[in-house]
């Protein structure tokens, strides 16, 4: 259904190409503020794609995905401020923290499916949030950790303006997107989609469905960690709000709004939410209402997400 989509030049592909071109060439001509927003879009785009591996491709709806994102961000925050570690140590530390945690949590959550999966991931996400809030000597509690050095400065690029960091983020984004695309088209990725469609049948065909689900969870956690590292460097601080349930559910909305099982869709979803939120809130205090209406309209007319418009179920 989704897996064997033939690639011909469709209007959609053209649109994606235009978006990519825009992300690549437009920033030098935009104001610093818009470049900042685009940086948020590409970083949250990585995060949304990583959740898409779970929701869209494996059929595992996770409501605790912001947890890995946040833990990786805290890894960078703690290592680079409290321990004054170098950049690569901080990045590696953040990545390992998020990924190993996913490997650990995966052992717990990979035995259940559907709504039970939703509930357990949500509970684990709340545990992580509680930890970030209460483990004060390490996380600074509610105040978070600020003063993370700028990434451009650390690798010797000029720290002037938001452009250098944007292109670093864009590069990381492109690499992650490529890796995830390869992943979902590999035999492993096809098996995941088979599990999503009919797990008992895959099992009777001899696939170890538990292991596939588990590995998909760990991969999603690893990509979320990369996004978390970038987010920590982008903002220069970390706080418990990164791991909140609202963060996880907003992420869920990015994926469902954009279109699960497409990778591109979640990026569009992330972009739409970030831009709409920031642009609308500048003009009206009722922007939450408008965002709500957009969600409802999408659910009614495009239940498969924006990117899946026009595709037959």
């Amino acid at each position, binding site marked *: 259904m989704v897996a064997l989509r033939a690639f011909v030049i469709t209007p959609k592909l053209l649109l994606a190409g235009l978006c990519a071109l825009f992300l690549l060439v437009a920033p030098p001509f935009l104001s610093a503020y818009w470049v900042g927003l685009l940086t948020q879009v590409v970083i949250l785009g990585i995060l949304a794609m990583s959740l898409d591996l779970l929701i869209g491709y494996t059929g595992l709806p996770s409501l605790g995905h912001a947890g890995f994102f946040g833990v990786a961000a805290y890894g960078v925050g703690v290592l680079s401020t409290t321990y004054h570690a170098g950049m690569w140590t901080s990045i590696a530390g953040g990545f390992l923290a998020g990924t190993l945690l996913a490997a650990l949590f995966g052992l717990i959550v990979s035995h259940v499916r559907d709504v039970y999966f939703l509930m357990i991931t949500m509970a684990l996400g709340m545990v992580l949030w509680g930890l970030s809030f209460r483990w004060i000597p390490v996380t600074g509690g509610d105040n978070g950790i*600020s003063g993370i050095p700028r990434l451009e400065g650390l690798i010797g690029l000029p720290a002037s303006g938001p452009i250098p960091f944007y292109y670093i983020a864009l590069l990381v984004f492109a690499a992650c997107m490529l890796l995830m695309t390869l992943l979902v088209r590999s035999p492993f990725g096809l098996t995941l989609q088979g599990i999503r469609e009919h797990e008992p049948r895959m099992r009777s065909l001899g696939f170890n469905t538990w292991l596939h689900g588990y590995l998909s969870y760990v991969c999603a956690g690893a990509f979320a960690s990369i996004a978390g590292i970038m987010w920590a460097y982008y903002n220069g601080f970390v706080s418990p*709000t990164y791991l909140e349930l609202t963060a996880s559910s907003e992420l869920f909305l990015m994926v469902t709004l954009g279109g699960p099982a497409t990778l591109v869709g979640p990026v569009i979803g992330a972009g739409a939410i970030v831009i709409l939120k920031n642009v609308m809130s500048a003009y009206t205090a009722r922007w939450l209402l408008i965002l709500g209406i957009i969600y409802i309209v999408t659910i009614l007319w495009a239940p498969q997400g924006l990117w899946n*418009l026009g595709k037959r179920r």
Partner: protein
Amino acid sequence: MESRKATLIAALFALICAASVIAAQTGTPQTPIKIGFMVPLSGGNAQNGRDILNGFLMYLDEIGYKAGGRKIDLIVEDDEAIPAVGLTKARKLIERDEVHVMAGALLSSTGYALAPYITSMKIPMVYPVVSADDLTQRRRSEWIVRTGWSGSQPNHAFGEYVYQKLGVRSVVTVALDYAFGWESVGGFERTFVAQGGQLRQKIWVPISVHDFAPYLAQIPRDVDAVYALLLGRSALQFMRQYQEFGLKGRVQLIGGGTTTDEHVLPFMGDEALGAVTALHYSAALDTPENKQFAESYRTRYKKVPSYYSESMYTGGKWLIAAINAIDGRVEDRQALVDALRRVKPEGLPRGPMELDEYGNPIENVYIRRVERVNGQLQNTVIDTFPRVSQFWNFDPARYLSEPLYAR
């Protein structure tokens, strides 16, 4: 069906494009002074944020949106009480709207998140409410001045007062479990214990607390007083349950100023009567300046001003005084931030105030008792500690070499 979907996409993109076109039209030939302002205007802290904004709007109306011979443009943003959102909004205000000066923020976490950015952009900023001690102590920024208070500031005074004047010898604290709670209780504990008082137990409640029963059950009935540091819904719930548990009338209730602040007081009943708290403001403060402020606030917004409302009335007055002091030449940011630290406007609702060299106010701390006057609850001022510094009567250098108050 297909065309409908296409319409939907088109509509969405049109919306985004239209918004960005409007967004691109900035700047007028005769430039007014642009003030960027942000508080939470949605979510659980929206009401406090609204109060802060109300105070500011009221002051700007009083001066006709003019200062230093220039018009004032106020640009308001909602920081949603989320630090990362606050930072994004600050970037928007500074980099896109090109504001000359910033004001606002409610939560300590947002205050800490903004500070490095504000410092790196060299934009003067006024924090009217954020009370995290270290913002004007160990982690202060030369670009940020605080016209509110630091969390431990009134509590240093209160610790001594409770021991000496109320004759309390043993206390149990019930406080919200985050930085604001730790710093308030820490300040109170320090001076109360130094006097010879005994702090029997510190009970920490999560900020999402719904039921105080498990915490109230822990309070020994033979303590002299219970110190409560709560705000918003948690304060209302606590007061009700304090009475239901039979503690009211048996154990004196004292606490931080927010517990009985006017943002919750009108929603309380007789259960709040007699509670003694300390803060740098009370809507019932009996001075001509405050009476006038409270009266016009009440007329305009149909409610009693809370300390949040007063915070940005005074903060606004401070900011405008600084702008006037440099004749509206706000483009000179260094001059503006110097003026912010130097000016000393008179006639503030809260009474006399000046800034110390760390950018924190030296101001009166009022001891208030909840009373019913003309059918309404109010925080009657029963004692005043004049000119209280954030360091109380300790030596600043030594104070700063010690760690910040924690759990």
